[in-house]
């Protein structure tokens, strides 16, 4: 069982019911569950969307798009059915927050899905979990069955004449399927290759119908926004970044774990206070602030860095999925870069040339480089390749591969140079990366 952690600075909103048996529907109701959905049923779509807008809730899947605004894009009238799609593909390295929500509070996801459905006028929602999360899928399936049994889902939810159904779905191993349009393809039984945009999902999504797609954490947050009120929720966070965020702190810290902290919370404090500092009292070398696709930050760059979408963006990286990966001074950055690019090489769907060929090339070059067979030209070449992938690919996965690579070569060029001239790896660790 994944360990739950706690810290006094945490503001427990989404994690409020963690560890309290809320996977049980009666317990969930006892803890105030499904009241938000009932309230929304009474208030109607416009009110819900206004609340969401006022809450400043921004998508927790990575891009930080304003949730209320996204919902408002769905056309009121549509010939085709509308859908809600919950993205629980959670595959960005460094990210395991949705894992805990599925485990401890599955009903919050169902409730959030119902509310999203009410807001856009959908009758059907899908909750998609990555294939590896089988035990969580079973928890979700049980929760959905219980919600049906109680009449919270079905033809007449909460005794109203409103219909809302939920279907759970499993993936089968593919990071790219987390990309919203690839996710729809996967759910339609196809290869997880993204779709051409426009049209955007809000207009033409699943089965051609208007679709709202949100990250699992975003959806789990929704009932809390309704319960506590948009203004109160927004007040917890920083400017234009409402509420809290589940930060998954991993890597070289004393107390890794998922912490719920207000938006804008200082990154340095996350590492040194909340997570107990760098493991073994070592020095901090670098930190990846929001999952493996976000450019690495140096210690001096995090001094006053508040963890919200805008501030991290200004610092030249991204808040991403909230996965903070802490790297100590005993770590080889070249190896870290290699392991990162290997992941993207493995996960590239292969649709477009720059990503398919670029990730493959970068992986090969970095493998050779790290093994001690690099040349000075390679460093420039790696940078050139990454620069030429950036902004040129069909979907953001190409950027997700290029951005961190650029960060590593630019910020740690010296360390790359140290690998040259018969000095294989100054850290002499693992060189092979067997994932193929």
């Amino acid at each position, binding site marked *: 069982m994944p360990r739950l952690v706690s810290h006094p600075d945490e503001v427990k909103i989404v994690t409020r019911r963690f560890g309290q048996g809320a996977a049980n529907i009666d317990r969930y109701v006892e803890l105030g569950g499904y009241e938000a959905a009932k309230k929304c049923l009474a208030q109607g779509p416009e009110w819900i969307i206004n609340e969401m807008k006022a809450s400043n809730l921004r998508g927790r899947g990575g891009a930080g798009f304003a949730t209320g605004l996204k919902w408002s894009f769905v056309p009121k009238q549509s010939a085709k059915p509308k859908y809600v799609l919950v993205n629980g593909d959670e595959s960005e390295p460094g990210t395991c927050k949705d894992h805990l929500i599925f485990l401890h509070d599955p009903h919050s996801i169902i409730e959030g899905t119902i509310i999203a459905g009410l807001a856009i006028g959908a009758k059907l929602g899908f909750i998609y979990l990555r294939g590896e999360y089988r035990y969580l899928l079973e928890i979700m399936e049980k929760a959905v069955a219980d919600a049906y049994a109680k009449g919270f889902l079905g033809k007449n939810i909460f005794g109203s004449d409103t219909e809302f159904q939920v279907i759970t779905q499993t993936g089968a191993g*593919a990071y*790219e399927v987390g990309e919203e349009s690839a996710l729809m393809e996967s759910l339609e039984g196809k*290869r*997880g290759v993204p779709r*051409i945009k426009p049209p955007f999902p809000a207009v033409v999504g699943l089965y051609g119908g208007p679709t709202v797609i949100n990250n699992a954490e975003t959806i789990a947050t929704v009932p809390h926004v309704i319960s506590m009120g948009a203004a109160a929720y927004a007040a917890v966070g920083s400017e234009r970044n409402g509420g809290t965020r589940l930060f998954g702190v991993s890597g070289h810290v004393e107390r890794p774990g998922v912490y719920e902290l207000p938006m804008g919370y200082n990154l340095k404090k996350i590492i040194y206070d909340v997570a107990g500092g760098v493991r073994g009292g070592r020095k901090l070398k670098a930190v990846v602030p929001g999952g493996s696709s976000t450019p690495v930050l140096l210690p001096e760059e995090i001094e006053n860095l508040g963890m919200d979408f805008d501030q991290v963006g200004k610092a030249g990286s991204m808040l991403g999925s909230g996965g903070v990966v802490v790297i100590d001074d005993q770590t080889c950055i070249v190896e870290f870069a290699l392991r990162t690019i290997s992941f993207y*090489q*493995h*996960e*590239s*769907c*292969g*649709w*477009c*040339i*720059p990503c*398919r*060929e*670029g*990730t*493959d*090339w970068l992986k*090969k*070059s970095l493998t*050779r480089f790290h093994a001690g067979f690099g*040349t000075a030209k*390679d460093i420039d*070449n790696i940078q*050139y*390749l990454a620069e*030429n*992938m950036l*902004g*040129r*690919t*069909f979907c953001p996965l190409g950027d997700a591969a290029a951005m961190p690579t650029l960060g590593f070569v630019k910020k740690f060029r010296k360390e790359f140079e140290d690998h040259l001239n018969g000095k294989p790896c100054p850290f002499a660790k693992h060189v092979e990366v067997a994932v193929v």
Partner: protein
Amino acid sequence: MADVTFTVDGKKLTAPAGTLLIDACRKAGIEIPAFCYYPGLSLQAACRMCVVRQEKVPKLQTACTTTVAEGQVFITDSPEITQARKATIELLLGNHPLDCPVCDAGGECELQDMTFKYGAGESLYAEAKQHREEQQWSPAVFYDRPRCILCYRCIRMCGEGMDVWALGVQNRGARAVIAPNGGDTLDCEQCGMCIDVCPVGALTSGSYRYKTRPWEMNHISTVCTHCADGCKVTLGVRQSNIGSEIIRADNRDKSGINGDFLCAKGRFGFDFVENPERLNKPLVRNANGQLEPASWEHALRFAAGKLKEIRDARGGSAIGVIGSNLTTNEENYLLQKFARTVLQTNNIDHERTADYAGFARALAGSQGRTASMRDTATAPAILLIGGNPTEEHPLLAWNLRTNVRLNRARLYVANAKQIKLERQAKAVLRLPADGYPALAAHLDGSDKVIAGSAFRETLLAEESLLVILGQEYRGAELEELVKWGLKRDNVRFAFLGDHANSRGAADMGLLPDLLPGYVPVTAPGQFSAEYPGMPAAPGKALPDIFASAAKGELAALLVVGANPIAKPGMDAAALKNTFVIVHDIFLTETAAHADVVFPAASLYEKSGTVTNTYGDVQLARKAADRSGVKPDFEILVRLAGAMGVDVKTLVPFGTTGITADLGQSRGAQAGEADRHAVWLAANGLEPKLSPFDPLAVLDEIERLVPGYKMDRLNLFGGNDVPSEPGFVPLSALTANAAITPAHDGLFTSGTLGRYSPGLKDLNRHQAAPALAKTAAD
């Protein structure tokens, strides 16, 4: 949609709103590079070559997916864009084998061209390339993954274009491959369209691979010699020690009535030309009863002497003539003129596959009611009755599918059997096995034989209709159905027959009772003056010719490019007392029974016109050369000459001068005729100063044959030109028509197909038990 104005590279352009930027640019002459975009197929945005900058948009945009709107501003050429394209090519070349010197596509490879253009010449790449073995998927299709740039054109062409869906993409990322439906083999129509659209040398054809370099070939456009759809085909020809050799067939300039399309027969079925069994010397039966090689002089003199002797002794009625479905209009015309005026017989026929005479008769007096092949690609509503175009008329099937897919045409299918085109149909009417004759009445409201159906209601609601009739129709039923359509406005017809020039054979009067243009022998009009010596009574049809041979009444039989003995029910023994002359390219069953065999040139080795089953006339141009053989046209002229005929009465050569070759030659510019002569020579056509120039006969056809008034400029420019069937009085039908549809499929082509190793291989491959369970259809 309304036109919008937008700016590209500072130029103001106008196009209908929603046009793809790449199309708008190309139309305006602004080249946008593209690997994955292919007009008419779904959009991919995968190769990223077409990137352009759009004002106020942060990222480069793909021109292949951007639709134009009012006031947009684009830049398609800037250092930034050039660098993006260059980098994409560099990335591609990272895993590309760069074996251009041996690659089939070398010289006509889009990747090579782009590398040249964007200068991604220096290799940044120091890593091991992914190696994978080349795979053979079928006799026709080979796949080389390292060369594949994953543009997905092949997949879309096969799926969206062919509706076969035999190709897919498997694995992901850099390990992605194109995969065939049979695991490691390809179970499909073997059309080679996937090879054709492949921008690089990843898909290669079994017949062409590693044979030559593109620049070592001459490319000559002509007309396919197989089915009756009449695709334009470009033959790649290389000099060889026996003349010249055809190495490849494709439709490289995408012009002609078939646009992109060629089927397996058009693409791979040219190899009969190189078959070692080709005849290359005349054969004459010796005293021992053996066929032995002879000189042309001897064979011609011998055959002519016999013919003359028989005609003079027993009259023309003791002679029969059987013409071909594959020879040119000029040859067919000449053959019947020779038969009627020199041999003085109307005993002339061909192996009829469809009742074209009946079709002409049904349409008598109504103009503008026939449809050309092009119409099948654009008509908003089509009614297909009988037939199975997917198998027997691949181009028609392609046109219908494309029309439905891109223009949302409505296709209605009425058929006794299930056919694949029903997948594109808006409505299907399943006829009882014997239901065809009742269809006209049914459409008029009778539910006696065919039960009332929604089909009729939707169909009749159409404002216009293109009716395509299969060979199930002939005679009275055909007439009844056409009459049904003629009662309505905006109904046009097409009628399906089988071989490359079956329609031309009928149009040119290879019929015992009908002269060229379906003019009755009994009412010959101006032909009576033109054809001195022609008997007044209709002659015998093919079965009767054989019957009279059996009775010992047929003294001579001239068979030009036909193999009647191979047909079921035909008895070779009937010919034992008949002097038989055969022109053919192989020693067919019929040729084996001949007394004299002349080695003939195939359609790919001569010039002339052919008429497809829709009445579109096209120019077949001489592509290859072969020593020892002669076109049927020349053989006939020589035969007539050897019989002592003044050949000028048969072929009006040199009479009106070469200016008559080009209807519009008296233009403003002096010297046009000279230039035309040069053009003719350059295109393998002889200026008609010799009796062997078929164009001299084309003049006569135009003059005498109703419906064959053609736009020569278009015809000689390589385009299809419509003909109109003539006017046939009701009485003029032969009773014993003996029409036998050939039902050639995707890999068969009558006797000719049996001599194509390529088609035989494909047939064998597709019949293999491993492919018995067809995946896609």
